[in-house]
């Protein structure tokens, strides 16, 4: 497995053999198809971080459901910031990889 990006306690990987992606949430390793990775990225993108600081999100947590409801996660504000970083970094690395392959 190739490491794509690491942010706080989370790490994303790509596995060429299974043609899948993995995210290590420290206590749990989750396998995602590309479609599921896109869906997770969208969920993370839709997290309103401002609401965590303005008091609109009173509990300061986000509940995300992954991979056709196979997994459920509860993330606090700090983890949400890390998740946003993880998704940005992961997709930047994937784009960089595409560019490198094109160049070769």
């Amino acid at each position, binding site marked *: 497995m190739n490491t794509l990006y690491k942010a706080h306690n989370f790490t994303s990987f790509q596995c*060429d053999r299974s*043609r899948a992606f993995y995210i290590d949430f420290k206590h749990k390793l989750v396998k995602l198809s*590309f*479609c599921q990775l*896109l869906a997770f990225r969208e969920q993370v993108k839709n997290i309103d971080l401002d609401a965590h600081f303005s008091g609109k999100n009173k509990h300061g947590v986000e509940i995300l459901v992954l991979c056709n409801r196979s997994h459920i996660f509860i993330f606090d504000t700090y983890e949400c910031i890390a998740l946003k970083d993880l998704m940005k970094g992961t997709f930047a690395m994937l784009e960089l990889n595409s560019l490198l*392959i094109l160049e070769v």
Partner: protein
Amino acid sequence: MKDLVRQKLSINVEIMDMLNKQIEKEAVSSSAYLAMASWCDHNGLENSANFFYEQSAEEREHMLKIFKFINDNGGTAYAPEVKSVMHEFNSLEEVFEAALDQEIEITQSIHSLVQKCRKLNDFTSEYFLQWFVNEQMEEEQLMRRVLELFDLMGDEPLKYIDDRIPGVREE
């Protein structure tokens, strides 16, 4: 490392995001035309109402075209959320002016999408969007022709202008 993204997705991820935004815009546009159709119906302007019902259906068709394009190419299209649209207007002329402004906004959005496709070398999406470039040109022309009617028949009763609306689309 394999390019798994390219294996699964024929279009650029950034373009996919922009296309999803475009889906939202087309949905808002479709909903706004419905509001215009409703206003016309309530004011006894039957032809104008039909004109906007048809416009609303067209915008929905545009939205579905983009929706299918994203999914067919391995991406994920998201069902749009439509927030409030304007239901109050002062006159029929204001309704058509709002419709033209809306079309201009959509045109600009399509143009920036094409621009981005060129920047990112996403030729698949650029080719797909060419249809929209042409369509938007026609939509703008249509709205302009209706507004010209108001310039030509300014003092005539609204009913006369409304009677002419179906003819504008057929031109």
